[in-house]
């Protein structure tokens, strides 16, 4: 076991663990944010540079620091490694710059975008970015691409994280989309206009950290913060059947996979569950889903607060 120290907190992890995974084992504020890394997708990570950390001591045997900031999702830990994340001003500065770069060509059409409210880029720029832009040039725009009846694709919003490509490679048989061209001209596309039709293709919606890939059956139907997420499952022959249903009143507006605190889905679901089963009777409801307290989805949802009897000893008498 390797001992690694991240922001003065130590943990022992297996050799081969990355710094990001070790930080996630510790948990809390010290976990670097990640846009392109997805724990369920092999080879993902190393694209967006938001998870950069500073290694101040390479290992116990060789205590020299790594001269540049490293991407924590791709760097494996060494025994005795000392890492600084939020305690290093250099990392905080670099992350602010990365957010600025990611937002250079991002259209910031959050009022129109269906992802708003559960968008990783929104959270990232809110926590690590600045509130104004220095970019005065025209933003890069692409022509609209139609990729089928189920998934809406907005190439302008894409940050080229490659997550959807890994998802299509690893979950489905035939990948029909990819990144075309190079450098600043790179874009995700199907090249020959072709619909993405596969039983598991809907998962590229869930893995997309921004609003580039959204659910066409939910397009402009409602804002996520007006919906109430409920955990539910069904006996699905093709997938795990573990989903989140998004309710307004008694109506299911959309079905998604269950995202964890890092916005990652671990049980991928099939297109039948996602797009066709929008009826409460199809599902066994498990209960309301807990949403992070700072999330906008929690707004205006009131919860009953249980007052401990130590604070209010008269509670029973009062009732």
């Amino acid at each position, binding site marked *: 076991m390797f001992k690694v120290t991240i922001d003065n907190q130590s943990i022992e992890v297996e050799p081969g663990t990355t710094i990001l995974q070790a930080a996630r084992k510790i948990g809390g504020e010290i976990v670097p944010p990640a846009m392109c890394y997805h724990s369920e997708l092999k080879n993902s990570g190393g694209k967006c540079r938001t998870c950069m950390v500073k290694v101040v001591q390479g290992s116990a045997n060789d205590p020299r620091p790594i001269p540049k900031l490293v991407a924590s999702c791709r760097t494996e830990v060494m025994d005795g490694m000392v890492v600084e994340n939020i305690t290093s001003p250099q990392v905080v500065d670099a992350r602010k710059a990365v957010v600025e770069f990611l937002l250079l060509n991002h259209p910031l059409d959050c*009022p*129109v975008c269906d992802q708003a409210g559960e968008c990783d880029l929104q959270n990232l720029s809110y926590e690590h970015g600045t509130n104004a832009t220095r970019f005065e040039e025209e933003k890069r725009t692409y022509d609209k691409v139609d990729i089928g009846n189920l998934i809406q694709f907005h190439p302008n919003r894409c940050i080229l994280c490659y997550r959807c490509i890994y998802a299509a490679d690893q979950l489905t048989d035939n990948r029909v989309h990819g990144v075309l061209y190079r450098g600043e001209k790179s874009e995700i596309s199907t090249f020959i206009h072709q619909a993405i039709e596969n039983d598991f293709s809907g998962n590229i919606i869930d893995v997309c950290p921004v609003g580039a890939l959204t659910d066409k059956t939910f397009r402009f139907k*409602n804002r996520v913060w007006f919906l109430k997420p409920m955990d539910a499952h069904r006996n699905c022959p093709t997938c795990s059947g573990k989903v989140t249903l998004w309710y307004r009143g008694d109506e299911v507006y959309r079905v998604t996979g269950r995202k964890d605190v890092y916005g990652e889905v671990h049980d991928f679901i099939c297109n039948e569950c996602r797009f066709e089963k929008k009826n409460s009777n199809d599902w066994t409801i498990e209960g309301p889903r807990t949403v992070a307290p700072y999330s906008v989805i929690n707004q205006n949802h009131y919860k009953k607060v249980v007052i401990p009897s130590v604070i209010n000893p008269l509670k029973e008498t009062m009732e």
Partner: protein
Amino acid sequence: MIPNSKNKIVLTKRSKVVSNKTMTWIERLYLPAIFQGMAITLSHFFKKEVTIQYPEVQRPVSDIYRGLHVLKRDDQGRERCTACGLCALSCPAEAITMIAAERKEDEMHLYREEKYASLYEINMLRCIFCGNCETACPKEAIFLTERFVPSQTKRDKFIYGKDVLVEPKDAPIDISKRQTPEVLAFKKDKTQSHNK
């Protein structure tokens, strides 16, 4: 017989003992009481008026008075509202309801963005005129004006739809009064991307 108040428990200082005393002959005439009342009424003719003749005369309101909402159009007469739902989210009284729709090809001149509000309702009975919707609006679409919400005889008349809220194309509604110099400076700031 008049009960002796000293033997009773007095709960307030203003409590009065009710008497069933029969009125005298003068009192039964009522004329002194009537003239006394008329004198009070007459004295008010010579005092300063406290009422105004609404709606012909209107009380002056503060520059930043928050009254009836307006949904603005842009320079080209297109609706600015994109149904993002932030006004409804920020509304503490939950008075705002909206349904979004996608703009069609032939509606480019009607709506500014890809998405627009096909239904936008404010329940004026719920609204507390706090102005949070105006603050929350990222598109500078909704503003509060110095206009009043008129009285109605039916409760459902108070649910204002887009027919009332959206400003008419030929008669734009002036909202400059409520916009302070700080707000105007912010709106001119081109580093804020929503101004482009």
